[in-house]
Each structure stands twice: as C-alpha cells, then as structure tokens.
C-alpha cells in the first residue's frame, strides 16, 4: 500500500514537472513572435539613431584667406554642422566679402551649405556656399550707388568672388529697382547680369 502511494506521488510530481515545462515552453514560444513583430514594426528606428554629422558648433566665425594672406571672406553662423569632410551646413549665416582688405559685400540668409571641392584646373581646393531662404546680398560701399539684392537662393564662388542664381532676383538702390529671372554678379567689379524677364523703374529722373 505504501509502495503504491509512493508510486502515485512520484507520478504526480513528474506530471507536475512535465506540465510546468510545457507551460514554460508555451510561454517562451509566445514571446518569440512578439519580439519579432516589435523589431519589424520599427525597422527605421535603429537607422535614425545613426549620427549623421561629424561635429556641431554654435556661434562660429571663420575667416578664409587667399594664398597671399588677404581675407577673401569672413563668415558667421549661429549654428554650424559638419556633415562630412567636405560639407558644412549653417544656420543664419552672415558672410562679409572683402576686396583689398575692405568689406565690399555682405550676404545673409536663413541657411547655407558650404561645400569644398578640388579644382583640377586651378590645382587647389575651392569652397562654394549655397545660401537659401530669404537671401540678402548688400553692397557695403555706403554710397548712393549701393545696391541690395534679394532672392531665395544664391551660390557664392569664393575663388571667383561671384554670385549666381537661377531664381528671380530683385535689385533695389537709390531711385532704382530692377527684377529679373536669374542673376550673375561679379562682386569685385560690381557688375550685375540678369538672364531674362527684366522689369524695372527709375524714379525722380530729370527727363
């Protein structure tokens, strides 16, 4: 009798152990698909966490010189983010362009992107800056000849000291305004060229 009860107890224990193991296996199997579906629901989350810039700085001022040591331009930005070895994004940039040591033109905008590249022809690195959103190009002569150009995009070639845009550009100055589509300006010689669709006016003339 005692032997029988011992066998029953042993049987019950092993049953309980087996049931317990089955429950654990079942729970384990249930967890696996949950984890998989969690991963699948957010496939891009991991990518978003990838750091997409090399460095970031605030309140930066940089000065660029030519091979003779003359200032070409000085640039300020409230925020500067180095996206790669050759590309820098800037927030609220302000650039002062120099000619023979004198500030001649200023460009401001909401944002800008500076890109360095190697010029095989010039055998040196060149830096172009693409300004965008509320771009203002101002002549700093302080004379009545001074002009102000507004546009939405403007590319500055630091070597040639030229600016260009394919978008509409408006020029305003003392008694004069002129609007056209497309602009190319030589900032050293103060020559402005417009590509098409010109219209303008001159006020208070003597004719």
């Amino acid at each position: 009798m005692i032997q029988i009860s011992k066998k029953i107890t042993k049987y019950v224990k092993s049953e309980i152990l087996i049931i317990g193991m089955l429950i654990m296996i079942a729970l384990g199997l249930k967890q696996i698909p949950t984890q998989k579906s969690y991963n699948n629901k957010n496939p891009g989350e991991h990518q978003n966490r990838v750091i997409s810039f090399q460095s970031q700085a605030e309140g930066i001022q940089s000065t660029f010189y030519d091979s003779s040591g003359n200032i070409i331009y000085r640039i300020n930005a409230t925020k500067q983010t180095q996206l790669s070895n050759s590309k820098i994004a800037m927030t609220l940039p302000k650039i002062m362009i120099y000619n023979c040591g004198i500030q001649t033109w200023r460009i401001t905008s909401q944002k800008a992107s500076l890109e360095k590249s190697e010029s095989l022809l010039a055998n040196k690195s060149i830096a172009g800056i693409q300004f965008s959103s509320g771009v203002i190009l101002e002549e700093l002569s302080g004379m009545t000849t001074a002009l102000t150009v507004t546009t939405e995009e403007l590319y500055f070639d630091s070597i040639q000291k030229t600016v260009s845009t394919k978008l509409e550009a408006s020029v305003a100055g003392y008694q004069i305004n002129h609007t056209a589509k497309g602009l190319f300006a030589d900032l050293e010689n103060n020559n402005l060229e417009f590509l098409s669709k010109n219209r303008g006016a001159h006020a208070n003339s003597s004719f």
Partner: protein
Amino acid sequence: MQTQAFSLVALSFYLFQISWTSTHLYAAEISINDKVIWSANGKSSMKIIGDSRIIEMEDNVEISQGTMKVKGDFAVIEYLVSTGELQKILVEGQPVHYQQRIGLSNDLASGTSASLSIDKETGDTSTNAISLITLVGNATLQSPSANMQCAAIIYAAELDLIREAEGPCKGELESSKE
C-alpha cells in the same frame, strides 16, 4: 536732291524760330517726376562707369515715361549715381517704335528709326529742361506739326518741334501753329 534736303533743313530751322516764340501755346507737361519704367525679355546688365550707372537690356525692350513709350531690340539707360539724375536713354531696333502724347492735348507724335536716343537739354532752370528725341537711320516722324521721313530727325517732343533734320528728307511741315 542735296539742294532739296538743304532747303528742308533750312525750313525746319525757320519753323523752329517761329514755333519757339509760340511755345507757350504748346506748353507741355515736362514729366520730371514721372518714373522711367522698363522691361525686356532677354539678358540685361547693370554696371558703374565713372559717375554713371549703365543699364543695358535686350530682346523685346519697352521703355516708358509718362505718355512716352519706346519699343526696340536693345536699350541702354544711363544715369548719374551721385544725383540719381537720368542722363540718357538709347534704344536700337529693327525698327525702334516711338510714341508720345504731345502737351496737354490728345495729339500723338510717333516715329520709327534704326536707333533712338533721348537726351536732356538743360534750360535756365531744371523745370524748363526739355528732352530731345533723336531718331537716326530711316527716321520717320508723324506729329501734329510734321510728317517727315529723313536720315535723322531731332525732335523736341514737349514743344512739338523738329529741331534738326538730316537729309535726304521727304514729307511736310506745318508753317504755323494755331
């Protein structure tokens, strides 16, 4: 032919003298404060040479000031940067078309030429400055007082007066103004 042209030029000078004395009858509104407005489909440029700002434009150019309107293929506008004073307008075309209302009347002056320039002629005061319209190359001019075709015509629009004409010319001039 040359004699005929010479006599026409002489006649125009004579008419100038007559009309000069009666300019008060044709006192024109000298549009000192009127804006010069321009438009062009093609390229244009803006540069400074000396004390002048020079604006050049091409392709379907239209320039207007007050009642004056000029159309052509290429134009140069020049003004003094120190004062903002407009100095010269030059338009070239095949041909250039010119049109202007004369004085306070509804009379029109119109003309065509290979090139047209508008220059300011300073008077005793800035208010009596007049603009001289110079039409050069197959120049034609129709105005209340003249209907002429010459190699070149210089016209004082505010006075409705042909100041000078270069032959060979043909056409007619009114001998007096009512």
